[in-house]
């Protein structure tokens, strides 16, 4: 298993390299003089020159590129322009919160989406189907910040069931969990929608397949046909969809963190934007791209678990 992971990681190296190069290029297409963008046009020439040197902008481009790559190979994302702290430290400090949120949302998505999708497909056009379709339509339609605000107004401001100001930092695990509920549900909403949909359509397709007819010819009860024969096959598109929309999830996690004022990568991004901290922004880009690459590898490995055709050619 570990060998597989290593090999698959090796395959991801060209992609990672290209991703890093793209980040490098992107940050350097800032129109105009970056020191003016960062310091504002009131800055003295001396201050600008100092910044230029600190950023390495006085070096030739290829040398900047080389330094950037070498740094990242050493696991170093550089230092913040504003606080001068190592960016890696800032990221590590908040990463657990983002991971906690994303994983919770993923669990909600699968735990709610799969049963809902199966029920909807079993009784087509019945109540469960109608509910599943409405729910997934809503899930797909709510922008994360809109659903977040509505949840916040309803359950935190009006009903006061959950804190308005996030207590995710609390050491008390109950308090921490209470702070997680609304954001996780907000983020999970879209995952529930995606998973419900793919489960429903996958089940409808699977139930029409020849092998289901074979299972019926074998005299299996409907229960086994649905949950064993059909659902096993639908796991494959479910994994695909989860892998495909992890990017959406990470993007929405950022928005959710902003709305619920949770510590995490999202808040760090807003900080970077407000302070025009391009170094921090660059670091965060690298982190999020890295997360997607890792997620893709995990998806590929999961395929091996749910689809025997992948493993044994």
């Amino acid at each position, binding site marked *: 298993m570990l060998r597989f992971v290593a090999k698959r990681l090796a395959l991801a190296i060209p992609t990672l390299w290209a991703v890093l190069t793209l980040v490098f290029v992107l940050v350097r297409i800032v129109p105009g003089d970056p020191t003016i963008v960062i310091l504002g046009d009131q800055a003295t020439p001396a201050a600008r020159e100092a910044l230029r040197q600190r950023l390495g902008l006085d070096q030739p481009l290829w040398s900047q590129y080389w330094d950037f790559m070498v740094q990242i190979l050493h696991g170093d994302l550089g230092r913040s322009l504003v606080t001068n702290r190592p960016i890696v430290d800032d990221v590590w400090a908040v990463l657990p919160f983002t991971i906690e949120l994303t994983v919770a949302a993923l669990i909600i998505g699968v735990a709610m989406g799969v049963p809902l999708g199966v029920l909807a497909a079993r009784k087509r056009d019945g109540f469960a189907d109608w509910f599943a379709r409405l729910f997934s339509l809503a899930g797909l339609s709510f922008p994360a910040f809109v659903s977040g605000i509505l949840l916040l107004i309803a359950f935190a401001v009006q009903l006061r069931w959950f804190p308005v100001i996030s207590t995710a930092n609390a050491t008390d695990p109950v308090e921490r969990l209470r702070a997680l509920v609304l954001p996780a549900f907000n983020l999970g909403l879209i995952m529930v929608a995606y998973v419900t949909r793919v489960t429903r359509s996958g089940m409808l397709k699977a139930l029409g*397949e*020849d*092998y289901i*007819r*074979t*299972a*019926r*010819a*074998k*005299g*299996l*009860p409907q229960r*086994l046909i649905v949950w*064993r*024969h059909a659902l*096993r*096959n639908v*796991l*494959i598109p479910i994994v695909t969809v989860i892998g495909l929309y992890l990017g959406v999830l990470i993007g929405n996690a950022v928005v959710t963190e902003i709305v619920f004022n949770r510590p995490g990568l999202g808040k760090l991004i807003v900080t970077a934007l407000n302070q025009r901290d391009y170094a921090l922004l660059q670091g965060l880009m690298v982190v999020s791209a890295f997360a997607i690459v890792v997620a893709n590898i995990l998806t590929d490995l999961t395929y091996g678990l*749910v*689809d*025997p*055709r992948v493993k*044994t050619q």
Partner: protein
Amino acid sequence: MSAAPITAASEALQVEGLTTSIRIAGHWFDAVRDVSFTVRQRETLALVGESGCGKSLTALSIMGLLPGAVGRVSKGRIVVDGVDMTAATEAKREAMRGDRIGMIFQEPMTSLNPVLPIGFQIAEGLMQHRGMSKDAARKRAVQLMELVRIPSAADRLDAYPHQFSGGMRQRVMIAMALACSPRVLIADEPTTALDVTIQAQVLALLADLQKQEGLAVLLITHNLGVVASVADRVMVMYGGDVVESAPMRAFFQAPTHPYSEALLAAMPRVDRASKLAPIPGQVPTLPDMPAGCRYQSRCPLRIAKCAERPPLTPLGGDPEHGVRCWVRAGA
């Protein structure tokens, strides 16, 4: 398995007056009309016809596998091993399927569940119908795989369908269908998707197993060559009607219905140069079926009386040989 004594119950499958309807654009049409036959133990009855003639629908009706929304048995009685399937509850039918009556399908590539191991798929029926433990069912599955001559069966128990060739998958299907030693096997175009050399192997296997197990086989095929190889009796279907029913040799010696004749004349032969006589026109769609004899729109012998539906009439010399044709039955 020892040969079962031929008793009164040697009629393993009886179908009486089966009419199956399917729904097209909101209307129900009879796609199988008043079909009756019996398959005895150790006997192979071949149901022959072109696509849309109702042969597969007949099979699905017997199994109780018609897709509910678009197909239903509207008349008739189906008796499998003494149990009236048409009167039975769905639970009873479920208990019969895979136990007393098995079925194999045309597409070996898609008829096996791609994500479950072969051994498990064979053992599943045994656990379901015989209440076998997982281990006992697995052991039996190995025996069944050996029975259908899958090489190194024990090693391939945990293999998946995609690791098998088409011919081997069809053997797995046969092993699955025979797991609970059913009395009736329905084989719906079992070799159509296979290459000819593999087809010959699978047909040989089916014939051997039938002898060993004393099976009653209902073979559904479009290929008259396959019929000539393995069938004991033949029923030709056209537009949902049985147009001719005969012992196999009698059929090939004297095909009597104009459609049977035409079908034989349209088939190019391997053993000699042949002159082809195509059947003009095409099978009408169900909504467009003519009243009376359904073959009349393509029939060279058509007379005025064909507007009435002819009965399946035994021919003078042979009570086993019946034909649904005014002209030929009258002759």
